[in-house]
């Protein structure tokens, strides 16, 4: 913006209501303080009034504070998107309060009406502010620095330079000042400079620098808008799929191959690149002393759309980039491979079943469902996999996450698994409604301990179970968001913009060079002709370097002989006593 309130630049001025970042400190700053805007009657007037209020600094500040406050509940209450289980638990623990919180959107704060309302109003205010400011700034970029004010007395930074007229003329001063002010800084002139001759004959130089301050400010705010738009567009276009893959198996990038698949409203299923991937092996490292995880690596082979294959690996923190999507290693565990024979000795089930780890030593929970028996009842096995089992009188437990002594600990159900009802079932849960648990004679549940390579009889003559091998599985998360590049670019734009805006000083410097006649400083009483130069500086906002800028300009003016500036018998002036520089 361009404009300031020193009343010298014309046109293109726009200031949000209530902003106070003008060039400050000058006496001749005209007071254009915008009083309360009185709305004209009528709908248009009201709208205009509402718009001015919305785009005012005070309302923007208020909305910012509101935004900060409104974001807090999202960290206090469990959120549906992040932790649906915690929300369900909260609803059970606090039925009445939970119901109301749910209605008011406290379990999905960042999509709630009130949170959205605040940030939409804030961004509307922002647009209403930056559009006119951009226009004004573009105008300011083409506008010459303001004319030199008549009096310098009340400017925050001032300086004076005095020389004998026969040694230094006002023209010399003007030329030196212009040369200094136009010095190159990163290839650009430091100041924009105009010179003028006043009717009195005095030469003036007006200079302004720091246009990048407003440019940075605008880039910052436009980038924030870019972040919001990228984020919103990302939610519409992204897709995300989760798949559990056992060693030696693979999956293809199609909606049906994922265990779960979510996508934005504008996602097109046909846009999925048909690559496929095989998990060759998975390696984990745990510290032997305290079982602390040290490293996880999934070795995979990717088959591209064109049929070429390549080997790659996925680690925590290092997702695999594939066809613009990223594949993350989100979890891992064991998928014991078992063979179940029914009472007739026929193979009723053979395959790997993922058991989900429950703790740091990979005590893993799982269910083996055996629906395809040739004779008799269906069988369901529920229990744990212990990678390194330690069996004591009190039971079996896992003591280390690596498979040193793997063991399945299972209880047995028989009856109807309920798989034929057509109702989708959770594969990690056994629906025991139509089933009976196998019991010992004393009424306790039968517990089978099956070590790797062992075959154990199932109770009640249900058949046998063999624990063949122990492959690993990985939980992969594939995500594609085409707007991430835009999000990054906008974020870096905001960072750059705010840095430039905060650390670029916006300054104006004025120089006036005249000639006068006065008593000779040597004290002889003669009248001599002098070149009198006055310099003033003004900055927008705080600027501790302003006086330094004025001083640097003064010292760039033609140097005077030593005997003139340091007369032996002279006394120094009050002003220069402490700050006189000797260059």
């Amino acid at each position, binding site marked *: 913006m361009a404009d300031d309130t020193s009343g010298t630049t014309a046109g293109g001025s726009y200031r949000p209501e*209530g*902003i*106070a*970042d003008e060039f400050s400190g000058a006496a001749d700053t005209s007071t254009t303080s915008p009083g309360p805007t009185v709305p004209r009657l009528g709908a248009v007037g009201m709208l205009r009034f509402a718009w001015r209020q919305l785009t005012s*600094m005070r309302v*923007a*500040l208020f909305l*910012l504070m509101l935004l*900060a406050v409104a*974001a*807090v509940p*999202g*960290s206090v209450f469990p959120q549906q998107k*992040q932790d649906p289980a915690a929300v369900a638990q909260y609803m059970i623990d606090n039925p009445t309060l939970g119901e109301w919180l749910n209605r008011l959107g406290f379990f999905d*704060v*960042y999509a709630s009406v009130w949170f959205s309302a605040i940030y939409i109003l804030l961004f509307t205010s922002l647009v209403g502010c930056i559009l006119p400011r951009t226009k004004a700034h573009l105008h300011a970029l083409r506008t010459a620095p303001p004319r030199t004010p008549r009096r310098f007395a009340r400017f925050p*930074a*001032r*300086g*004076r*330079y*005095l*020389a004998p007229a026969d040694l230094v003329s006002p023209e010399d001063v003007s030329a030196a000042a212009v040369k200094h002010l136009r010095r190159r800084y990163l290839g650009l002139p430091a100041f924009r400079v105009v010179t003028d001759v006043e009717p009195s004959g005095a030469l003036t130089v007006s200079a302004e620098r720091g246009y990048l301050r407003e440019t940075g400010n605008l880039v910052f705010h436009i980038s924030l808008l870019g972040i919001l738009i990228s*984020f919103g567009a990302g939610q519409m276009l992204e897709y995300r799929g989760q798949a559990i893959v056992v060693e030696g198996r693979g999956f293809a990038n199609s909606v049906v191959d994922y265990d779960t698949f979510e996508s934005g409203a504008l996602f097109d299923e046909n846009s999925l690149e048909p690559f496929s991937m095989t998990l060759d092996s998975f390696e984990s490292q745990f510290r032997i002393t305290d079982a*602390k995880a040290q*490293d*996880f690596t999934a070795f995979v082979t990717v088959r591209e759309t064109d049929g070429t294959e390549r080997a790659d690996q996925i*680690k*925590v*923190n*290092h*997702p695999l980039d594939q066809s613009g999507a*990223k594949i*993350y290693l989100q979890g891992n565990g064991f998928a014991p491979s078992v063979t179940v024979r029914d009472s007739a000795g026929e193979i009723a089930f053979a395959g790997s079943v993922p058991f989900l780890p429950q703790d740091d030593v990979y005590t893993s929970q799982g269910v083996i469902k055996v629906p395809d028996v040739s004779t008799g009842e269906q069988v369901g096995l529920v229990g744990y996999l212990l990678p390194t089992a330690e069996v004591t009188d009190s039971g079996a437990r896992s003591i280390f996450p690596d498979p040193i002594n793997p063991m399945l600990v299972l209880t047995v159900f028989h009856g109807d698994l309920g798989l034929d009802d057509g109702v989708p079932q959770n594969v990690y849960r056994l629906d025991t409604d139509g089933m009976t648990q196998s019991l010992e004679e004393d009424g306790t549940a039968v517990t089978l301990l099956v070590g790797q390579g062992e075959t154990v009889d199932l109770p009640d003559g249900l058949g046998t179970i063999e624990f063949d091998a122990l492959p690993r599985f990985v939980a992969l*998360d594939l995500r594609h968001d085409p707007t991430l590049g835009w*999000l*990054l670019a906008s974020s870096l734009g905001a*960072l750059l913009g*705010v840095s430039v805006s*905060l650390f670029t000083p916006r300054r104006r410097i004025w120089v006036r060079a005249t000639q006068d006649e*006065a*008593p*000779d400083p040597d004290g002889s009483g003669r009248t001599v002709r002098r070149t009198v130069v006055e310099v003033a500086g003004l900055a927008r*906002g*705080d600027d501790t370097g302003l*006086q330094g800028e*004025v001083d640097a300009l003064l010292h760039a003016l033609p140097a*005077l002989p030593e005997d*003139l*500036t340091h007369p032996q018998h*002279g*006394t*120094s*002036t*009050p*002003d*220069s*006593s402490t*700050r*006189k520089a000797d260059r």
Partner: protein
Amino acid sequence: MNLSEISDLLAWGAATAYTVAMIAFAMDLSQVTDAMVQRKTARAAKTTVLAGSGGPEQYGVSSATAPSEVVEERRRSKALGIAMSTTTIGFLIHAAAFATRWVAAGHVPWANMYEFWLSGTFVAVGLFLLLQLKVDVRFLGVVVTFLSAMFLVLGLNVFHVVADEVQPALQNYWLVIHVGVAVTATGIFTVSFATSALQLLRDSRDNGSTLLRGEGTVVRGRNVAAWRLMNWRFLDQIPKPTALEALSFRLNAVGFVLWTFTIIGGAIWAEDAWGRAWGWDPKEVWSFVIWVVYAAYLHARTTRGWAGRRAAWFVVVGYACVLFNFTGVNLLFTGKHSYSGI
């Protein structure tokens, strides 16, 4: 005794040195009234001399500057000398604690809460000493050493964990960048908070707060509580509210840029580690709140009627959020930023 334990001992040493320095700073501030009177007398005498020197103006350059209080001549006192040297010694011990922790852990020493406070206070004291090289900010010493000693002791007692390698989720160069910048920003916000807090106190005293003039609490003209613990006269010695506001702003501007970078870097890392750039994890929520509060501060400074006192309150609120983000968020909420148990 292993390196991790040596580091802890050194951290205790640094906390002790800061405590001693804090006491010395406080003693110095309680003595300043006398020094001020002497200085005022001296200044008056000087002005008289200068006023007497008339005569024609000399050739050359002269510039008129409104004298900035921050660049005033440096005050000397025994207590202040002890305070500054103890702070410097404390900082050197702190540096040793920092370095030994780095070696013992085998990674940058800001991967858990204890290490975060160890390095955050290190940045705060380092910044204080660095600023002191350019301008006289010794008036900040009492607050900076107090906060640093307190957070170090808090970290050693409550959040301490033995130096250990980091889990796979943290094995990334972003740990160095993202958390490193966050630590630096926290250190800067600590010093700017100290500045703004003093600004508010001095402003209140200047505007006739009876409490801050050592006259107790006055309600409707009646002195209801005669707080005589402090006379608060040291507030006259520190720079004017406008100078403090200017210093605080410069620190906050740097802090805000670094905080913006912390959030962006965190989002880039989260995209790699968790498969989403932003997911409103409690730590993300509070980082966002902090960012918005400091953004509001920057706006308040340029809003008519909000600059100065009201803007300074944003710094206080912002710093409270910073503290909560690095303590409360880890202790009260479960989120993805929980490592090492706490």
